[in-house]
């Protein structure tokens, strides 16, 4: 945590405080019932009270989301590389990768549970399925956007397919890839939560999805919001980690990371 990282944290924190103040004020002024939209103070209170459940839930869900995200990152890039190998392959298969994204998880949950058992494994797979496509789509665009003259240069020097991939295409696709990963980071959390709705409950470690479901049923809106916020924090942490890594890797050469 050096100085500039700290300084970078100031604007979002200021925004957060402003947001919370507005929210609290609006809820109080308009007398919105607490079970509909609880004020941040109430969410904070229930969050403190249920801190251990929320923390445990965040850890359980976070673990699944992390596995799902990791799988998406690795397999997404691999699939994109495969699709980029020829226009023919891309045309034939790219549309079907979209299938994964348009399948409601609930519809394939039985299969997931049957194949991976109920609990974290199936949840991680759900997270993976939900977050895969953005990685594929962005990496593919990135691979396709490589400056053709640089490609020529590699061809001229007899670069093998793998070297071209490794030393030209992937570095050139990095800015796109990181955008994909940023999107995937948020989706992996939602994928894990939705997965937990259906498949997730291993003894002793109820994830945030289970908390959300239960709190919803019980109309404990404050706890519901606290759990949702915990999920968002999870997403933000992943997102932040991805963004920082990206900024660090791209800083010296890509305009999108300049001035960060």
């Amino acid at each position: 945590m050096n100085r500039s990282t700290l300084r970078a944290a100031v604007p979002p924190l200021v925004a957060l405080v402003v947001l919370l103040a507005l929210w609290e004020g609006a809820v109080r002024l308009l007398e919105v019932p607490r079970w509909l939209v609880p004020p941040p103070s109430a969410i904070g209170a229930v969050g403190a009270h249920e801190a251990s459940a929320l923390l445990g839930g965040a850890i359980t869900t976070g673990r699944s989301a992390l596995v799902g995200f990791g799988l998406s990152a690795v397999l997404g890039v691999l699939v994109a590389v495969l699709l980029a190998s020829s226009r023919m392959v891309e045309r034939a298969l790219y549309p079907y990768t979209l299938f994964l994204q348009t399948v409601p998880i609930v519809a394939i949950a039985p299969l997931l549970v049957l194949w991976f058992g109920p609990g974290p494994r199936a949840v991680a797979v759900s997270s993976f399925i939900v977050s895969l496509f953005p990685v594929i789509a962005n990496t593919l665009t990135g691979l396709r956007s490589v400056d053709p003259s640089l490609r020529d240069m590699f061809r001229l020097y007899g670069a093998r397919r793998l070297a071209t991939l490794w030393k030209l295409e992937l570095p050139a696709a990095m800015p796109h890839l990181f955008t994909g990963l940023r999107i995937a980071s948020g989706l992996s959390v939602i994928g894990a939560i939705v997965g937990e709705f259906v498949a997730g409950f291993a003894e002793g470690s109820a994830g945030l999805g289970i908390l959300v479901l239960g709190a919803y049923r019980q109309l404990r809106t404050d706890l519901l919001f606290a759990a949702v916020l915990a999920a968002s924090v999870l997403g933000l942490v992943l997102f932040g980690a991805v963004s920082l890594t990206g900024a660090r890797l791209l800083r010296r050469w890509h305009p999108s990371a300049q001035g960060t």
Partner: protein
Amino acid sequence: MKVEGLRRTFPGNISVLAGLDLDVAPGSFVALLGPSGCGKSTLLRLVAGLDRAEAGHVTFTPTLERTPGERAPIAYVFQDAHLLPWRSVLDNAALPLELTGVPKAERQAAARAVLEQVGLGDATERYPAELSGGMRMRASLARALVTHPRLLLLDEPFAALDELTRGRLDDQLRALWRKLGMTVLFVTHSISEAAYLAERAVVLSRRPARVVLDRTLELPTERTAALRTEAAFAREARLLNEALEQGEHW
């Protein structure tokens, strides 16, 4: 190297090469001149195998297949620098060696040496975005020279350089050629540079490019700055200039 009946037409019916023939003996140094947009870069790309002609072909004797242990048979200095923005100057210059599997220490030493030659010894750790235009072209030149190629294609490598640097690099290039004896195809817009460097000059006409003049220069092998003021040099330059003007009006 033998170019036979090369034809290349771009979409929109833009005929750039309409049956070009050119015969280049191994180890010769050929300067290629011609008006802007006539097809010089296109020809170089075809020779390098980076583009496909509709008709005709380029053959090499002896063949230009990479022999085991060789760094790279062909090197190309593109008209734009085409550096990898995510690599330092050193790593850019070392790239062709990296691609042929030369160990790290060795290739970095080689790259450093050639960067020193082009006057970038103190910028090895900078990134392309941090270089001036001329420095980028020199880095690109270093990347080509590092491979000790058998065929060296240069597309206006020195256009962005001041005359002193240019003169120095001219001399180095010629020295390198005499030492290694590779075939050089050198595109330039500078008549005096062409006359100073090359053994033979080919002047192309406007698009579609045809050979207006193909002349073996009658100049000594040993060339120094003094040559530029000699009568023989002036004569060659005048001949080239005339051919260029002629090609303009074809």
